[in-house]
């Protein structure tokens, strides 16, 4: 009877040890699953990341694509590429949209794992078209009310925006794309 107890405990212990050794993030994940995860602190980190993303993004547009701050910009390569591709297209036409964020309201932040999160944010932007060389305003002010679903991943110790989806404000975002969530 005693031997049976020893075998049961040892087997379970070995299985837990192997699970922890196999993946370096296993302990973090275990803490997240069992509720020992600093959710409030990480939520704040995510809010700051999204705010910093918006502020730097409008900076890129306002400066006509200046690369200052690009290394600190919390976005994945393809997200950065699309922003600069857009700025270059406008510059070719001799124009530049200057984006100014008015308000961000965080509607929901969901954690998929300790290293992956989804943030739904209601944002209002004002966009003005300027002449690229004279910087004179050439259009009226366009109000852009959107709901953005940001997909974030923790990489190299900081949160990075790996992708985002844009919806008109008030629209319920589509269900999370389950097949893509863990491929980022």
């Amino acid at each position, binding site marked *: 009877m005693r*031997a049976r107890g020893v*075998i*049961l405990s*040892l*087997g*379970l212990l*070995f*299985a*837990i040890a*192997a*699970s*922890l*050794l*196999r*993946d370096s*993030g*296993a302990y973090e*994940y*275990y803490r997240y*699953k*069992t509720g020992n995860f600093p959710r409030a602190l990480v939520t704040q980190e995510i809010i700051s990341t999204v705010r910093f993303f*918006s502020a730097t*993004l409008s900076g890129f547009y306002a400066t006509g694509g200046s690369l200052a701050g690009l290394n600190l910009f919390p976005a994945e390569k393809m997200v950065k590429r*699309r*922003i600069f*591709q*857009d700025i270059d*297209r406008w510059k070719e036409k001799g124009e530049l*949209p200057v*984006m100014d964020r008015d308000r961000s309201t965080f509607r929901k932040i969901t954690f*998929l*794992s300790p290293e992956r999160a989804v943030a739904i944010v209601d*944002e209002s*932007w004002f*966009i003005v078209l300027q002449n690229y060389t004279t910087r004179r305003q050439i259009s009226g002010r366009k109000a*852009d009310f*959107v709901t*953005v679903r940001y997909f974030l991943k923790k990489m190299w110790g900081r949160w990075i925006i790996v992708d*985002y*989806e*844009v*919806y*008109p404000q008030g629209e319920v975002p*589509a269900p999370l*794309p389950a*097949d893509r969530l*863990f491929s980022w």
Partner: protein
Amino acid sequence: MVKKIRFINKYIFALSGWYLFCYILLQASGLFGPSVYGLMQLLHQWPVLSGVGVLMGATIAELWMACKTGAFRDSSRKALAVFYAGLLLTGAGIFVSSLTRFEGSLILNEGQGSNTASSAPDLIRLYVRKFSRPPSADIAMVEVAPFPEEAGCKTRQHQARLLVRDGRSWGKELRVNDAFPVLSNGYYYKVGRVGYSPHVRFFRQGGDIVDDAYAVMNIYPPGKEDSFRTTMLPYTFYLRYYPDASGVPGKAGAFAGRKGPLYKVRIARNLDLVHNGYAEPGELVSADDVLVSFGDVKRWAEIQIVWDPGLYLMIPGLLMAAAGGIAFIMQRNKNARYKVETNG
């Protein structure tokens, strides 16, 4: 001496079996990481392989000692020998599988073909082990059966008809579905995801077509949203497809009473939403200076292709182990009953 080894071996056998059970259960529970692996990928992890190795060692030792002491003359022990042999076969199958398994995915529109061995293949290599043998064949999608939601269709299964041509066969037709894999020339074929590919056309302002393709999108079942991007444009195109517009929620204006297929199109340039509305098939949609149209749709299916010689050992091994285990328990109960009757 043999008795002593047998005593220790019994505990090693029990410990490794229990450890494997706990490990697989812990991984499947998602307590130490997201459970995104398939069963076979889980079995190929080093903690499982090491446990299987120990279990196989203990099984071999048990078989050797039983043969030496002549324990298998008893009929219940014979059943136990079958059980052990089944375990060994299953273990060997797991090791062979961990070295050879190949998992791939091929997404094809109706009427589209692909050579899986070409230098720029459409075949996505999802899981490749050291001695894997990816398929080398021409595969053509002859037909994707109408989806259950489409008019006049009663089946709940997704089916596809393929034409497979490899070194051994010349245009063998395969009917595959999403329930059971079909075996052909050592490869298992099964239908994975299915969906619609809308005919996407990009135009210049003058009307010339710049780009023209059927874009494979995850817009099935009707109303499900997916998006695509092109490398040359900073836009994201979000699309929903309704084969019958009469039940589309929230459509208004010109589309309010409309029947037939309809798209819901949303276009965003980075964070700027530049278009949001409905469009009929073939209708031009403009966003900034981009002109795009979404035409007819083709059905597409994802064909999952698996090559795994380890399965030929694992499946008979599991059957043998199950049969041996059941026979052993039945024989033991019979013996116990016989003893009670003779004592009584």
